[in-house]
């Protein structure tokens, strides 16, 4: 295990940011800390980096007890949401900073920086100031700067949070490919479940200072430990007292089965190839998503009466068992 976090707690005044958190982060993988804003994930990342000090608990990095080490001695790379560029230094000097601190020979610094700038595709911008770069370029520079010192672990705090949607998507794919090349243990914080599902090898879901679940993206999506995780990772709807994903529901117009629920289509919304149907049953409104072809083959329209059921072999949470979770999440 590369990073071992044991019983870490942190408060800011009366606010509990982390409440007895223990996590093991495996070597060489890309791990996401996922959760809503204010849930404690950034605090955890900053504690790993030594930028924040835990009130209690221990942090080990590669078997070394780092709890009392200052950030300077931890050999971690940290990438901030707002880039934290050194504004008065050129891109080249930004990337070289950590190596200069370590007093490496000039020639080595030069070749290492050039190598990294090539890796992040900023070779032709080496002499520019950060203010002359776009947000995406600045973040790539920050990443090169963090990687330059060959950190034991790379930590990214909402690295794409300040970028617009299109650049965010590009950088996300690029980060995944980059990680496949350099294989440094990487932890990144995000509140965007799509980002976590797409990029991470492993996801740690954190909410209100506690770890809700740890697992691979598939585990989390298909076997959420509780309603919070289920709701946070994707769309949900309620059928009877079961919490299900709208695309795990089926509708048909045949004779009702004992497990089916009868309802009337009250609204049809089309989003590209996806059709979202709102079905009003005797006591609730259920959302079902279908592909366009599935929908056309049903031959229904608003006002039609249909049968709804959960597709076989689908996990569904019990809505009644966890009422408070639902109220909070909605």
């Amino acid at each position, binding site marked *: 295990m590369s990073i071992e976090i044991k019983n870490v707690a942190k408060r800011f005044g009366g606010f509990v940011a982390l409440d007895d958190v223990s996590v093991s982060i495996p070597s060489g993988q890309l791990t996401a800390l996922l959760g809503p804003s204010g849930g404690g994930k950034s605090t955890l990342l900053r504690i790993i980096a030594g*930028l924040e000090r835990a009130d209690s608990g221990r942090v080990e990095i590669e078997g070394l007890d780092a709890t009392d080490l200052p*950030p*300077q001695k931890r050999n971690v790379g940290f990438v*901030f949401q*707002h880039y934290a560029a*050194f504004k008065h230094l050129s891109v080249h000097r930004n990337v070289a900073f950590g190596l200069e*601190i370590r007093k490496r020979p000039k020639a080595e610094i030069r070749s290492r920086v050039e190598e990294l700038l090539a890796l992040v595709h900023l070779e032709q911008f080496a002499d520019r*100031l950060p*203010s002359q770069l776009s947000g995406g370029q600045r973040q790539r520079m920050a990443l090169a700067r963090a990687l330059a*010192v060959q950190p034991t672990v790379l930590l990214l705090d909402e690295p794409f949070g300040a970028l617009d949607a299109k650049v965010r998507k590009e950088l996300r794919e690029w980060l995944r490919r980059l990680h496949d090349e350099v294989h440094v243990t990487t932890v990144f914080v995000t509140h965007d479940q799509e980002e976590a599902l797409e990029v991470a090898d492993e996801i740690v879901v954190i909410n209100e200072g506690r770890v809700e679940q740890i697992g691979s993206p598939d585990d989390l999506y298909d076997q959420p430990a509780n309603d919070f995780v289920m709701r946070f990772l994707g769309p949900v709807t309620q059928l009877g007292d079961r919490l299900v994903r709208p695309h795990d529901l089926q509708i048909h117009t045949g004779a009702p089965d004992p497990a089916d629920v009868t309802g009337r289509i009250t609204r049809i919304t089309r989003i590209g190839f996806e059709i979202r149907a709102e079905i009003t049953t005797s006591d609730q409104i259920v959302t079902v998503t279908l592909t366009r072809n599935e929908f056309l083959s049903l031959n229904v329209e608003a006002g039609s009466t249909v049968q709804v059921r959960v597709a076989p072999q689908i996990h569904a949470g019990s809505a009644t068992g966890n009422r408070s979770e639902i109220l909070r999440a909605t």
Partner: protein
Amino acid sequence: MLWFSLLVLIPLTAVIVTASGNGWVEFWRAVTNEQTAAAIQLTVGTAFLVTLVNIVMGTMIAWVLVRDERFFGKRALEVLIDIPFALPTIVAGLVLLSLYGPDSPLGVNIANTRVAVFLAFLFVTLPFVVRTVQPVLTELDREAEEAAASLGASRFTIFRRIILPSLTPAIAAGAALSFARGVSEYGSLVLLSGNLPMRTEVTSVRILSSIENDNLESAAAVAAVLLAISFVVIVAVDVIQRRVVRRG
């Protein structure tokens, strides 16, 4: 615009015109008159020294005000910084005299010495560097410092290589203003320095005595020198600020 012209432009032009009225030679003679030259030398030299002190102390004060956690008396320090700006200069002279003058409870008497000139300049220029550095320090990107720390930079290195370069323009602007203020100081010296010719007489006092002797031409000549200094300072500050804006 007309008002501004009547009040500022025309009078300042009058100074320049009067200064050059008797030709370059007369102007040069007025400025290089032994007593005048000594006054200019004292004024500029002391203002320069005071500015150096302000660069160090002003930055330190701004640092404590912005970065130190709250402590007893911090708000009071904030108010103290502004007192030299608001206090009438003649009162400032009296204020310094009460601690460092003949009746000093500290037992030092610097009245009528060059130290008095230095102290008076130090007092009236106190706010400038503090007040230009403070907002910049508040707005500084703390994450850049954290990034430097995680890259292995020590506290001292972070200050020297990350913080100081960002503060330099503000420090320079504050230093320029403080220099200009020092050079132009008059009121606080009246009671404090004794205005001894060749020893503690500053430029402004020199101009005033020319005015009182009805020698307006030589007064204007020396005044033109002061005007030139203050204009250079204003332009310098303007250039510094424009460069900062460009850096973004």
